[in-house]
């Protein structure tokens, strides 16, 4: 909704006003905080967990791990023929999962939740949530304001640029405080680790957090991006060779060649939203895809892009590589597209269920696990149920 509302209300003064305007419309927004917040409510054990909305899935080699709605994390040691539900300390929608090894993995989701597993996804602990995120942003903003005020004092109070910067920083603090008042409302949308200690989580409204200690502490890194409009950051991936790429709303693309310390804004080939990035086998190569079947390829870590015909108008959400040249990408309305030539050309298929799917992963060359609004399904590369 970010971009739509932004456009609708842009003339009236941006996002903040848009939210106030909407907020006034139906119900007053006062409510008391629940005794058992979803952030502290363990996921309810359910036999339906593997048939209900799952959003991301990862292949750990011997084990498959999928995450989804209501804090569901399920795992399978039988190549997907049976699933067990893990104990999870939260019951929010989990949006992404990433494992750096067969043991260590992270899952992120709504409420700014970051979970960690040390045992290949069997058990999970909460490392971080939106309340901490809000607090961290406020503290950072306050520190920045203090710094600017100090600089302004130094300059004798006459530096106009500094004054503007201070004003902006004060607005940012107000925003952050407002967010904190609302609570842990912003979701993380993807997570990627470079090593078993160093990783990033991205999310809505420009959320970008970094850890360098395996998730014990997370630090706001959102200011490293040139994302003034605070567009949603939908995906973050590590490319072959170690470059990082972030794709998001309204076609925003950022890349980093120094492990995320600095980020370049990429000249985007598309102004609609990107939902996913799929790193390819070759160094610095990746596919990015998103709204209405838009699909682009880079072989130079985002410096240039070529448009690929996806053969579909459905939004593309998540993809998988068989380790070599075969690629499957899935999306809304039962769409699955397949390439056998490393992403140069695709053929498009339509699943009979026409449901939305968000991710898939290769188990063998002709057997994949597909996740989406009806849970997990075992399928062929073109998305046919096995």
């Amino acid at each position, binding site marked *: 909704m970010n971009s739509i509302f932004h456009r609708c209300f842009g003339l009236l003064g941006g996002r903040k006003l848009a939210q106030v305007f*909407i907020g006034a419309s139906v119900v*007053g927004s006062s409510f*008391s905080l629940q005794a058992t917040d979803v952030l502290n409510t363990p996921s*309810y054990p359910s036999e339906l967990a593997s048939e209900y909305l799952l959003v991301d899935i990862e292949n750990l080699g011997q084990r498959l791990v999928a995450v989804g709605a209501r804090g569901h994390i399920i795992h399978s040691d039988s190549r997907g023929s049976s699933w067990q539900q893990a104990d999870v300390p939260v019951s929010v*929608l989990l949006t992404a999962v990433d494992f750096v090894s067969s043991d260590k993995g992270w899952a992120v989701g709504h409420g700014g939740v970051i979970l960690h597993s040390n045992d290949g996804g069997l058990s999970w602990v909460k490392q971080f949530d939106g309340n901490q995120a809000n607090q961290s942003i406020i503290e950072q903003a306050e520190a920045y304001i203090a710094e600017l005020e100090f600089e302004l004092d130094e300059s004798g109070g006459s530096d106009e640029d500094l004054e503007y910067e201070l004003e902006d920083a004060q607005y940012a603090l107000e925003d952050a405080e407002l967010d904190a008042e609302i609570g842990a409302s912003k*979701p993380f949308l993807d997570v990627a680790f470079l090593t078993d200690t160093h990783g990033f989580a991205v999310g809505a409204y420009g959320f970008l957090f970094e850890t360098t200690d395996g998730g014990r502490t997370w630090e706001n890194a959102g200011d490293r991006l040139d994302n003034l409009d605070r567009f949603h950051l939908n995906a973050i991936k590590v490319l072959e060779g170690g470059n990082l790429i972030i794709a998001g709303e309204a076609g925003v693309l950022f890349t980093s060649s120094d492990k995320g310390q600095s980020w370049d804004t990429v000249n985007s080939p*598309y102004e609609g939203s990107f939902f996913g990035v799929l790193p390819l086998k070759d160094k610095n190569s990746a596919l990015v895809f998103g709204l209405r079947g838009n699909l682009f390829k880079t072989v130079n870590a985002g410096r240039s892009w070529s448009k690929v015909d996806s053969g579909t108008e459905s939004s593309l959400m998540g993809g998988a590589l068989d380790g070599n040249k075969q690629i499957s990408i899935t999306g809304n*309305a039962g769409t699955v597209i397949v390439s056998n030539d490393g992403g140069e050309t695709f053929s498009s298929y339509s699943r009979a269920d026409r449901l939305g799917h968000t991710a898939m992963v290769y188990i063998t060359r002709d057997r994949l696990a597909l996740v989406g*609004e009806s849970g997990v399904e075992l399928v062929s590369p073109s998305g046919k149920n096995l």
Partner: protein
Amino acid sequence: MANADQSSAGTNNSVGSGMVAERLIFKNRPVILGIFLLITAFLGFNAAQIKPDASFERLIPLEHEFVQNMMDNRSDLENLGNFIRIAVAAKDGDIFNKAYMETLSELTDEVFYLSGVDRSSLKSLWTPNVRWVEVTEDGFQGGPVIPNGYDGSQASLDQLRANILKSGQVGSLVADDFKSTIIYAPLFEINPETQEPLDYQAFSKELEEKVREKYQASNPNISIHIVGFAKKVGDLIDGIGAIATFALVTIGLTLSFLYIYSRCPIATVIPIVTSIVAVIWQLGLLRLFGYGLDPYSVLIPFLVFAIGISHGVQIVNQIAVQQASGLNALMSARMAFRNLVRPGILALVSDAIGFLTLFFIEIEVIRDLAVAAGLGVAVIIVTNLILHPVMMSYTGLSKGGLKHAKKVEMSDHKPWRVLSFMSHQSIAPISIMIAILGCVIGLYYQKDLKIGDLDRGAPELRPDSRYNLDNEFIIDNYSTSADILVVMVKTPPEQCASYELLDVMDRMQWRLENVEGVQSTASLVTVSKLVTKALNEGSFKWFELSRNQSIINSSIQRAPSGLMNTDCSMTPMIVYLDDHKAETLDRVIQEMQVLIEEYPSENYEFLLAAGNAGVEAATNQVIEKAKTVMLLSVYAVVSFLCLITFRSIAAVVCIITPLALTSVLCEALMAQLGIGVKVATLPVIALGVGIGVDYGIYIYSQLETKLKEGLVLQEAYFQTLRTTGKAVSFTGVTLGIGVCTWIFSPIKFQADMGILLFFMFLWNMIGSMWLLPALARFLVKTKKTA
């Protein structure tokens, strides 16, 4: 039903009031006939105007908490239930062809103009409110699913297919297999133009004529399936009409049976005429008291007719005996009246007391049933005990009938002689063993007895009725359920969409979805998540309830009106169920009650329960509670009746045991036939026991008289069988005939009642003639047997 005690007749009836009444009646026969004629004409005129009445409220337990909650929130729930869905199916191929779309367009227009339809909310592929939406770089894009410039060409049909896929209507308005689509029409309970309530029968008829018949005829490649509350009620009312046929069949059957029994045209016709008069009076009085005929009370005339006939036969019997002994027609009729008026009234009063226990069931329609039955029994006292002998006093028996009566009297009564061995000392223990065995077997099978309705679809109608087949079609081809439980959530004004509440509802819904038998759930939370997802460019990563109240508010701005009342103080949580079996309902209600305990708050209140499943659950609870109370009280009442009549515990045991055995066997039969204990079948127990006890009373009283005369048991029993037994068996068969035609009713519960009453009437009769003497062998002190 007076199974008159023929041989003791005349011994104790020469007492005052009876004589006065007799003189009054038989001295003024023309006046009496004239009065009857006038009353019958007047009540007949009223009876003719009696209206079918299938009022929803009378069928449900209004005093139950669930129903009261539903009624309290009725105005806010209205739009949830009352709609019809018309599935238009293509027989060959799919919906994407010119002819199909043309018919669908015409049909949509036709439905649009049906009176009672809420036109602004009518939905079909051809209505402009059914649109496709697509997220593009510039925001939403959309349009009606029928493409602009649609001309039936392949290109425009292809465009239509694409639009349908983008519309999200597959599963709700378009079948999963693309072979049918639905026209969805919400109805006005009260027509806003005329302020008249919706006439379900007329509406249903219009649907048949103007929609189903007309368009299936004009396009042979389509079939039409219609479901919805209005259609169901219409079908039910039509089903009441079918009862007329059964009435004719019953009369025909009774006619031939009476003739075989009496071989006398007069004795055949007059009982039938007087019984029909009884029915006319009963219907006329019902109308005068402001009652209509609902699908339950429409059955009472059959009972009245059958009870009337059985009393009529007693009178015919008596007159035959008197005439055979040489009296003239008038004196025979007077003697018959004199002998039968007391036992007749006693028997009818005991029937009425049996019916009264129906008042323990807190469901209006059942209480109406008690009123109708009570009225009927009261009417029979007048018509069959007075009008019948007066009419016969003019005619007497025909010569043929008289001859037949004499012949029967003179015969050796061989079947009765054989049957009398039931009281023999070596046969009686066997009978008792068989009875115990039967009881054990009955108790074993009775364990499967279920509360509530057990079939899928509309339980009122047969599983293979058109309505239920249509329902099956829609359930199979669309993602939808017909069994809906609605939990009402009350909040202070403007608080029905607070995060606190929606979060709790979200958790509850998931817990409910994990209950066996729950298909899915829906509420504002569902809408909020769906819209939040849609506003985030259709990404499932956003299918979550936001903690940000502004986002919640904007996500529910366009929520369907039924999901929120005008001041946002009530919002429903809708639970779609696989079926409405009692176990399913119990499981869901129980889980819901646990959840309500688990999430207490001052800011909201969860109230059970509306929707058809909510009403069923309430009904089941009422029935379950009433069942024990009713069984206990009906048995207490009849036992008491026996005790004061015979002043002997042995008599009570002899009479009640066969009834109890029948009750057990009846429940086992229900379990085996898959008939649940429900509104329709619970009264059967009261009716069956109330009427059934008469058999035992008459047999026992005759037996006792004969024993007092000094006969040994088997001979006393033979004498009993020859006279009273004959009448009892005749009565059993007559009553059986009266109810067995119901088995063919298009209304399922009428058929169930028919089967069970038929069983109970016959078994009570058999039990009283077979088991009663065997028990008497051990319980009643007699002189040594021969």
